[in-house]
């Protein structure tokens, strides 16, 4: 089913600005397409993406149908301490997925 790809450096120096890359497999059906019979294909997108580090939110995004299938999002954060990044995707039709990645800060 749904699967996530996360790219977080395993190690970083304190104070480094690191890039985090995320990809979640998802069709991102816009709700604007229709079948040959003329029925509208219901919208099925991820509406929200959140990244938390050691429990506190560091990045959040609202997504719309204009985001391509398999949403790929990259952003930056400052490495302050060792810990765990937690990623959460929430979407239409009860979609909810999580992933996590650890980092060692020296």
């Amino acid at each position: 089913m749904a699967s996530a790809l996360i790219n977080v450096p395993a190690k970083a120096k304190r104070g480094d600005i690191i890039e985090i890359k995320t990809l979640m497999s998802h069709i991102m059906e816009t709700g604007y397409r229709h079948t040959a019979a003329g029925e509208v294909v219901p919208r099925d997108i991820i509406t929200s993406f959140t990244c938390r580090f050691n429990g506190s939110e560091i990045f959040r995004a609202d997504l719309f149908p204009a985001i391509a299938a398999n949403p790929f999002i990259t952003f930056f954060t400052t490495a302050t301490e060792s810990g765990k990044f937690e990623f959460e995707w929430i979407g239409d039709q009860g979609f909810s997925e999580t992933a996590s990645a650890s980092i060692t800060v020296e």
Partner: protein
Amino acid sequence: MQQQDSTRRQFLGLAGGAAVLAAVPIVTTRPAEATPAELASAIRNVTGGAAVKAGKVKLDVPPLVENGNTVPLMVSVNHPMAPEDHVRSIHIFNEKNPQPNIGNFYLGPHSGRAQVSTRIRLADSQKIVAIARLSDGSFWSTSVEVVVTLAACTDEVI
């Protein structure tokens, strides 16, 4: 002859009126593309009517796109990310997709760098607008024109 002219005029007048009547519901029921007015109102929803200055924001999108289904987009804001003065959020809009919004990204001083990348869909050649909101409440923006060869399949039958 006179009689014929007037009936022809009446006919054209009636036909024109009918065409106008027929056109109105088509326009109102078809949300095929966001209009510049919708773009403006989506921007107003974010800024609350505050002035938006040009500058600081950089939008990196290929000027010529072959496939509108997946277009790489990178937005960055040339601004320090200090606790007392940083970029709070970045909002991206388009002009001609069915909806004016593309994405909203919320950052903080811990972000270190105000830069976000993603991949978007474009239904037509159009203008893309990025707006950044700073912690002092000011708004900065930039826009780019993108030419799309193969549009994203908004109306495609599957």
